[in-house]
């Protein structure tokens, strides 16, 4: 132990009882008693005693071997703690965690802003306010809830008797829903969405397939949602319900197989000119846990690199994606976009990122592609 105290001197600091606030003027020598050493030693070890108190401890332990041992033990403990690397140093060396945090925060802020937009409605017009009021009424008035339930049951029974009973509708060129009664009602009212939020939420697995190939004159796609109430919908890639279902599959990627997400990307990319679709593709490129899906999402954004949202997603992928293949894909896309615009050499942000990758990326492939890209942009990395 290197810091073993040596100098004697009389002093005391009142830890554990009623310690006095310390100041420079109070750094006078007091007597330290043996019973106080236990509580002062750890403060000494972690450098929380002022000069006077420190001198007092030094003086005391120099004359008291038992207390010297107590102090030595605490100093030794302090050194052991100091020798351990702080967790933050080892838990995010690559900076990937920081990138994930930033991405998640950006999404959360988007949600907040969207919610704020909704709440901008006058309160009495807001459907949310009405729903809240109804909910509270039902919660706090159980008798009323029961009566309403009975009335609703009665009305549903009467309405059910009046509904036409017959074979399911013939599915031809019209988009269809396989779920029998609800689908029938829905197909008679084309303004209603053919897939409800609940059906999407309940989907346990899914299958996406082309009915007519994407290269044909009238491409059509079929989305099957498997759940206790299975259903499928068929339509063109720009059909609103198809897009909604595919967006759901991508946004809830943890519940569906990567190949389903890949197929969803295949369809959605045909409508990448739609900003909402691009938003979904950008989110997938950032957040999907499968690198292949992220790579494909980036690829689907090709041609829209001038959109700031897309550009950010590309640059984020190059800078912080965990998978070297995704980073390389990002480099290719940004390079081809800059070459098409003829603006490569003037885009300092991209050049900086490429240089950074060239010098610090752990993957040799990424470093090589960064060097190639810089070369092609007429800016060989230093």
């Amino acid at each position, binding site marked *: 132990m290197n810091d073993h105290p040596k100098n004697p001197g009389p002093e005391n600091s009142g830890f554990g009882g009623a310690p006095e606030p310390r100041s420079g003027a109070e750094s006078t020598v007091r007597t330290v008693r043996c019973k106080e050493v236990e509580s002062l030693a750890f403060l000494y070890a*972690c450098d929380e005693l002022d000069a006077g108190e420190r001198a007092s401890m030094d003086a005391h332990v120099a004359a008291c071997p038992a207390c010297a041992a107590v102090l030595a033990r605490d100093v030794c403990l302090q050194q052991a703690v100091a*020798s351990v690397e702080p967790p933050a140093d*080892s838990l*995010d060396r690559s900076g*990937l*965690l920081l990138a994930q*945090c930033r991405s998640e925060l950006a999404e959360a802020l988007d949600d907040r802003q969207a919610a704020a937009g909704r709440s901008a409605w006058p309160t009495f017009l807001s459907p949310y306010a009405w729903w809240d009021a109804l909910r509270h009424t039902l919660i706090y008035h159980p008798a009323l809830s029961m009566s309403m339930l009975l009335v609703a049951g009665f009305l549903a029974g009467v309405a059910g008797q009046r509904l036409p009973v017959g074979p399911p509708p013939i599915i031809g060129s019209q988009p269809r829903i396989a779920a029998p009664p609800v689908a029938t009602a829905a197909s008679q009212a084309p303004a209603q969405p053919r897939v409800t939020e609940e059906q999407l939420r309940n989907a346990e697995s899914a299958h996406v397939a082309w009915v007519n190939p994407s290269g044909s004159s009238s491409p059509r796609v079929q989305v099957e949602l498997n759940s206790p109430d299975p259903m499928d919908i068929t339509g063109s890639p720009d059909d609103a319900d198809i897009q909604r279902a595919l967006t759901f599959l991508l946004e809830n990627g943890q519940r569906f197989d990567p190949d389903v997400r890949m197929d969803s990307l295949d369809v959605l990319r045909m409508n990448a000119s739609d900003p909402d679709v691009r938003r979904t593709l950008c989110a997938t490129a950032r957040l999907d846990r499968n690198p292949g899906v992220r790579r494909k999402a980036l690829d689907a954004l090709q041609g829209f690199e001038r959109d700031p949202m897309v550009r950010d997603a590309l640059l984020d992928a190059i800078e912080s994606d965990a998978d070297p293949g995704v980073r390389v894909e990002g480099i290719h896309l940004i390079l081809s976009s800059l070459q098409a615009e003829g603006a490569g050499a003037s885009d300092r942000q991209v050049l900086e990122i490429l240089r950074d990758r060239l010098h610090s990326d752990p993957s040799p492939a990424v470093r090589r592609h960064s060097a190639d890209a810089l070369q092609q942009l007429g800016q060989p990395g230093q």
Partner: protein
Amino acid sequence: MAAHGMTMTWSGNGSGDSVRGSASIGVSGRSLAPADERSLIERAQSGDREAFEDLVHCFDRDVLRIALNILHRPEDARDVYQEAFLKVYKNLPRFRFECSFYTWLYRIVTNVCLDHLRRRSSRPEDQAPDLASKACGEPIPGDFFDRQQDMAASSDPERRMQGLEIARRISVALERLTPRERMVFAMKHYQGMKLRDIGDALGTTEETVKNSLFRATRKLRAQLEGLL
């Protein structure tokens, strides 16, 4: 383990509602000139999303570092990061420049961390110490460079083994501390803060902090018995 000079004076509830005082803290991610920082904050206060994100990027490395040092788990640190900055976003219009932004932010972050530790301590199944298992020789998570740096930490195998054992026992001991003791320990030993500043950050007295640190040290000492 670098110690950072830091003085703070403030009061408030940690949610950004009322914080007064002045601070100069030697811990900061990217340095901004005071005028630039003020202008950025004012723009963010007026609803400029881009300015808010710039502000976040100036300080978020430190925030993540604090959260990692206190919670030791990347997933929890992510939660803290998001929760803290969403609180900042919500309360920023009420920030009146009566203390430095970093001081205000630090208090919010430490409060969120404390809440996390309290929630964690009420879930026994959620208390497996990640760092301890890492130190035990299990596969080290992270990328290639993480692993390389860990492997190269010490070329003396005996010393390395002892270092790992100390790290493991410290990690185990930290899991057994109360949330407040653990906070104080991390702020003192990993963030390098003085006890008085810790008291300010946690809205308590230096004496209370001292007692917490004393208890934490005693438990740690018991855990490291025979190793030192």
